[in-house]
């Protein structure tokens, strides 16, 4: 029953309308008088014309053509697709939050400021940092903010020769892209045979041109960098700073903290670790925490407390300035704050504990059938290689499509780059053992299917609303918008 869904534009009928507005009740002036003709649009706006129910049915049908965490298991590695509690959604739409203007006077926004302040206290404790900005709107935005702060710190000290940022080969793509955006050069650090950062290579790479080391710990391979203390020491001795990419923070809450490991700057992905939804790509939130010596460089404003009164603090003479028009994704921060208040310290630690137990359990099940290049205790995720299956005719991408046919969202595929035909699996803390068992069983079935008829697997999926989509064609002759025939 495969078919395309009509576009809004194809459903449009001239004369239909989906809105209801009261008539203009002020004495109107002739349009020309308040807006000269020359400034007016020459061609009338072309938008679809639809009634409300048509719109609802359109988007309802589209929603059925979409897979979310609420639909089923979503072990997308490094994305921490855990359950998004509904109370968080309720909190964020309270009119006392959702309909506030960012330029309101402080005395009219005390509840919002208190929430921002409370959230900062929670994040400081979670990460062992001294202050946080909640302004970055996403993880990559947090990375950029963090590097700007590091840059401002070095520049303030008159240290202008630090032009390089070190990044392990296993890093997310956002790390090197962020480094370029901040005007730095990337130095790649290889991994050793254990899948950890090669400490000797790191030591050899650090010098007085090193601005920072950006590190995700646990790494994208799901391993804790055991030599973190020596790594931090090497970077600090050379005058560089340590940046913690919090993408994988869900593995270590309550067990260890970036600040205790020696990191100077941290970003968290609250849409991963703190259970706010990903929204089909966003909005997220990427708060950045820093150690004391970097506080003067944080974006303005900070939120300060004096007695029962909360206020914005713009008085940071060395601040990098702003990275967002206002205070970041406040609505997302509300959800993360609600989550932290629901979980408490014990709950958060249990979440990390279960995330790690689930990952190790699932890894243990799957390594019986699939090739596990680095066979050791993992943290919240692990990476299989479908190289053997690829040789039989169906690789990681094909296994992903076969999972779609069986009602699962696939793992992250072809990343990290250091594992050939990578399948990066992160089950998260909110999945039941039965789900993991079912997933493992399905993966075994797919392995058998590949043994029997790899060609068939290589042409899936078969049960989805559309078949395998031609991505090459999309890129070669791009159609990026609908146009009237």
């Amino acid at each position: 029953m495969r078919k395309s869904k009509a576009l809004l534009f194809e459903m449009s009928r001239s004369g239909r309308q989906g809105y209801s507005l009261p008539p203009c009740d002020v004495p109107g002036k002739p349009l020309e008088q308040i807006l000269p003709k020359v400034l007016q649009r020459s061609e009338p706006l072309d938008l679809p014309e639809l009634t409300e129910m048509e719109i609802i049915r359109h988007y309802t049908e589209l929603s059925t053509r979409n897979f979310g965490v609420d639909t089923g298991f979503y072990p997308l590695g490094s994305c921490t697709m855990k359950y998004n509690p509904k109370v968080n959604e309720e909190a964020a739409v309270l009119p006392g939050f959702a309909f506030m203007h960012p330029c309101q006077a402080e005395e009219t926004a005390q509840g919002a400021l208190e929430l921002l302040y409370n959230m900062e206290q929670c994040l400081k404790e979670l990460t062992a940092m001294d202050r946080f900005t909640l302004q970055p709107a996403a993880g990559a935005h947090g990375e950029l903010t963090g590097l700007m702060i590091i840059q401002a710190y070095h520049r303030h000290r008159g240290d202008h020769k630090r032009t390089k940022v070190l990044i392990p080969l296993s890093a997310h793509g956002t790390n090197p892209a962020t480094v370029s955006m901040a005007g730095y050069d990337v130095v790649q650090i290889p991994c050793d045979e254990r899948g950890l950062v090669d400490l000797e290579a790191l030591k050899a790479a650090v010098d007085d041109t090193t601005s920072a080391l950006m590190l995700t710990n646990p790494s994208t391979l799901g391993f804790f960098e055991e030599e973190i203390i020596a790594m931090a020491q090497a970077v600090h001795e050379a005058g560089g700073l340590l940046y913690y990419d919090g993408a994988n923070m869900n593995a270590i809450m309550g067990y260890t903290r970036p600040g205790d490991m020696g990191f100077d700057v941290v970003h968290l992905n609250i849409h991963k670790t703190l259970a706010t939804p990903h929204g089909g790509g966003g909005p997220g939130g990427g708060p950045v925490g820093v150690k004391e010596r970097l506080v003067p460089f944080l974006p303005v404003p900070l939120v300060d407390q004096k007695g029962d009164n909360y206020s914005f603090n713009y008085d940071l003479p060395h601040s990098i300035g702003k990275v967002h028009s206002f205070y970041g994704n406040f609505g997302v921060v509300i959800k993360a704050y609600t989550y932290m208040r629901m979980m408490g310290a014990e709950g958060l630690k249990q979440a990390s504990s279960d995330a790690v137990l689930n990952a190790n359990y699932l890894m243990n099940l799957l390594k019986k059938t699939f090739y596990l290049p680095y066979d050791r205790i993992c943290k919240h995720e692990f990476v299989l290689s479908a190289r053997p299956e690829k040789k039989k005719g169906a690789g990681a991408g094909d296994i992903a499509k076969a999972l779609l046919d069986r009602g699962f969202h696939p793992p992250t595929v072809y990343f990290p780059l250091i594992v050939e035909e990578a399948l990066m699996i992160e089950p998260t803390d909110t999945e039941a053992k039965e789900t993991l068992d079912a997933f493992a069983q399905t993966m075994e079935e797919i392995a058998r299917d590949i043994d029997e008829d790899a060609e068939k697997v290589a042409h899936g999926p078969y049960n989805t609303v559309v078949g395998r989509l031609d991505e090459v064609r999309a890129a070669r002759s791009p159609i990026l918008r609908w146009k009237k025939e």
Partner: protein
Amino acid sequence: MGGKHYLPLTDEDRRDMLTAIGANSVEDLFNDIPTAVRLQNQLDLPPALAESEVLDHLNSLASKNKHFHNCVSFMGAGVYDHFIPSVIRHITGRSEFYTSYTPYQPEVSQGILQAIFEYQTMICQLTGMDVANASMYDGGTAVAEGAIMGCGATRRSKVLVSRSVSPFYRGVLRNYFHSRGLILEEIPLIDGCTNREALGKMLGEDVAAVVLQQPNFFGMVENMSGIAEAVHNHKAVLVISADPLSLPLLQAPAEYGADIVVGEGQGLGVPASFGGPLLGIMAARDKFVRQMPGRIAGETVDSEGNRGFVLTLQTREQHIRREKAASNICSNEALVALGASVYLAVMGPKGMYEVAEQCLQKAAYARDKITALEGFFLTFPGINFKEFAVTVPGDPAELNKKLLENNILGGVDITSFYPELKNTMLFAVTEKRTRQEIDDLVRVMEGWK
């Protein structure tokens, strides 16, 4: 323990799973964390709350705030109290959308991909551009990335930005440019608009882009005629920050020669939410698509020839190009863009026009009434869309206090952004304001001082 209702593993499960792994305890799974950095105590966080308790707590915080539902708002400066049709929340609240990730697996993400494709189309229809992306974080970051795009497209490193562009956006722009070592120069104002003569003199062969805002920060509709020609004569690109709510009425940026259009899309049915999440708009002419940051959805076909949608032109993006990517953006504001699409579909061409015209008429009505008051005058005479700057006879904060006593969220005090202006406020009047509300505002202002 808090959060038990989110954690399905039972103690029995945990024991069985540990046995299967061959571990004695969960602690064994954390042995790779060196003792020196292991947390010895429990985190010192506030005690866990039950759902009813957490709602009580958040309700009590929310109740301390003033907002558009318990006050009448005349605040603007980039974020507005436009009407939000009920339909939007029902669509963005469908959890198949909001609990999904970036659509890397297109066969199970056709819903969000098609919605993004439709969003891109409607942004193109509004702006007159050829291509739009799936969203940026907000207006400020969209302006910054638009300017950087201009540098990428021209391989030059200097950008001119008008002082009539929102100071909130220029703050972000300055920061992005300073970090990257790009050069930013500000074009001075004349009567609240970009000084065209000064711009002409500042243009040169080293200029990558010129960034203007329409309507500008003071709500004024600038004269754009001839600007694109001047910019293009120097092989630079014209970046326009536009308010999408103005576009049904005002010239589309394509009509006056814009190359890249950015802007804040909050007016398109997005709750103000104390300034975030917002919606960064990014659109451009075809020839700049390779420099465009962020996700783009494109049409293709499946194995049976059915139409379908995928993320495309990904070689611009960080996960493929790494340090050579056009930008580092990964997560965006997709769900907000979905809401904006629903808004545009609901309003349609006529509703959009009506909203724009009501904004224009009501702002003109309020402007005339306020500036007729003794001691109040229009800071910059000219053409306004939905907001205008007023110089008031005293401290704007005091006036706002007086207004607040009457449950009015007054104008935004812009004096700190423009030291040359004294006691100047920006009043925004959307289609939602009634004649009665405007008259009430004017009456309180009249009685002040």
